[in-house]
């Protein structure tokens, strides 16, 4: 392209016009390469979501109404669902930060070979089916499961704890599944921090702890923010793990959408819930994209 621009200066006008037409043709043919993908995305994502948006303004009898949105503010069941969703999301995101940050920090400082080995621990679960990992937790956490067995053998508890089919099990399973989404962008951000800053800090007399908090930590914040938003957003719409590990006690947003459709066949209610979930998700991701660039976040998988 730039060669074309350079050449353009020195040639007669009609040639320039010809080149312009060529460039236009080039743009059109390149755009047409994108059309198959655009068409299927439009058919499978945009059309149905638009349709659901439209449906969200109608009640089951087909009358226009705002009831589907109003219900979110006054129905106790809905408010309980939202409270639970945000409680789980904050908890999972918080624990992910506490255990993910040190891990990303350590891996980012290891020599390439060792870092590669450690990354396997992060990436392998990422590649393993969500369902398989949820199943594994179901087995580990059950009444006669390994964790209860160990705790009893160690004499920490006498009676098996209720670790699954409740809030605890859901949170443990979700932390396990979402942790890589925090560690990968965080690791990428930490890797790009110039180590010379830290050397300069210690040259100037900063203690290692001070150098970490004053130099390293602020520079790692964009990556941390990316990971936090990603984990939080995925929590909000999570279905499989709470459905299987929650034992019906952890009713989350996505599950309410599913039951509105499958149990009550109330498309308006399900659509309204979905639309609000979508808006919250997109607003958070939009903020993230402005800061970090989404394709970089996902390039780990």
């Amino acid at each position, binding site marked *: 392209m730039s060669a074309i621009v350079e050449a353009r200066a020195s040639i007669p006008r009609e040639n320039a016009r010809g080149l312009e037409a060529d460039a236009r043709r080039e743009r059109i043919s390149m755009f047409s390469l994108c059309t198959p993908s655009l068409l299927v995305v439009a058919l499978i994502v945009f059309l149905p979501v638009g349709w659901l948006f439209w449906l969200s303004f109608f009640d089951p009898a087909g009358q226009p109404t705002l009831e589907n949105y109003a219900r979110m503010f006054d129905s106790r069941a809905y408010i309980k669902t939202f409270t639970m969703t945000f409680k789980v999301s904050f908890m999972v995101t918080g624990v992910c930060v506490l255990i993910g940050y040190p891990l990303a920090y350590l891996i980012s400082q290891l020599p390439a070979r060792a870092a590669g080995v450690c990354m396997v621990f992060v990436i392998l679960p990422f590649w393993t089916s969500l369902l*398989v990992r949820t199943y594994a937790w179901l087995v580990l956490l059950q009444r006669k499961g390994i964790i209860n067995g160990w705790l009893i053998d160690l004499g920490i508890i006498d009676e098996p704890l209720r670790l699954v089919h409740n809030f605890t099990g859901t949170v443990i399973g979700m932390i396990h599944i979402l942790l890589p989404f925090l560690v990968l962008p965080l690791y990428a951000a930490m890797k790009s921090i110039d180590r010379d800053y830290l050397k300069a800090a210690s040259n100037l007399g900063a203690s290692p702890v001070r150098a970490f908090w004053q130099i390293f930590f602020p520079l790692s914040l964009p990556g941390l923010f990316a990971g936090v938003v990603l984990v939080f957003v995925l929590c909000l719409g999570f279905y499989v793990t709470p459905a299987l590990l929650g034992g019906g006690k952890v009713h989350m947003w996505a599950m309410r959408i599913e039951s509105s459709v499958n149990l009550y066949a109330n498309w308006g209610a399900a659509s309204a819930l979905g639309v609000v979930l979508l808006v919250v998700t997109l607003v958070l991701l939009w903020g993230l994209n402005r800061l970090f660039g989404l394709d970089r976040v996902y390039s780990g998988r």
Partner: protein
Amino acid sequence: MGVATETQITHARRLWLYVYCGLVMFFLIAPSLIVIPMSFSDAAYLEFPPREWSLRWYENYFGSIEWRDATVVSLKVAVMTCLVATPIGTAAAYGLHVAGFRIAPTIQTVLLMPLMVPIILIGIGVFYLYARLGLNYSITGLVLAHTVLAIPFVVITVGSGLKTYDMNQERVARSLGASRLRAFLTITLPQIRFSVIAGSLFAFITSLDEVIVALFVSGGENATLTRRMFNALRDQIDPTIAAISTCLIIVSVLMLVAVQVFGRGRNA
């Protein structure tokens, strides 16, 4: 210098960090690893370590027509998704990379949308749409939906491969008289093939492991493996699922190794 780390703290003084991270890595990997030995247990309930070893859960898995059918459906859908998503995703990535038109970032965002829209919303939306199109419970419908979920991964992976490729090579081929298609197939594609292969593996595994859309739009004789597993897990903990899980873990590991081998030297 020998004992100090980059941060001027000795390894011994941050032993706690190594131990802590070791525990976190154990937490990440242990669940998948523990399922494998348990699948070879002879007991009717899952125990670790197993007292008696047997292959009975594998016999159960491969002997059951329902599980076998579901596996075939899942594999069929995953292969077809891979075959559809890879070429159209690669074409889009190429178009976006070469063209540099003003709306390219917008198109890129649109193509990444399936990653951003909550999957539950796509699930019910597709279910609603397919009810009108008569595509529910069909392989075609499932492949179409999975293709859309896989496109972002192909676009990202191939796009990052193209960034490290020198497009002038293709220009040379064309100035020597090769058609655009020929130049792409003989010059560009061989050099970005690792990204394309990695992208296609992403597409395959995305489809194979997908649960929610399959819960809504697959069923009857075209129920996927994940759908059957999900429903089975709701009722009880059937050890057969440990055997299936082990098989899925092996597939994941193979895919991961393949991506690492193909993508060596690049962060695909």
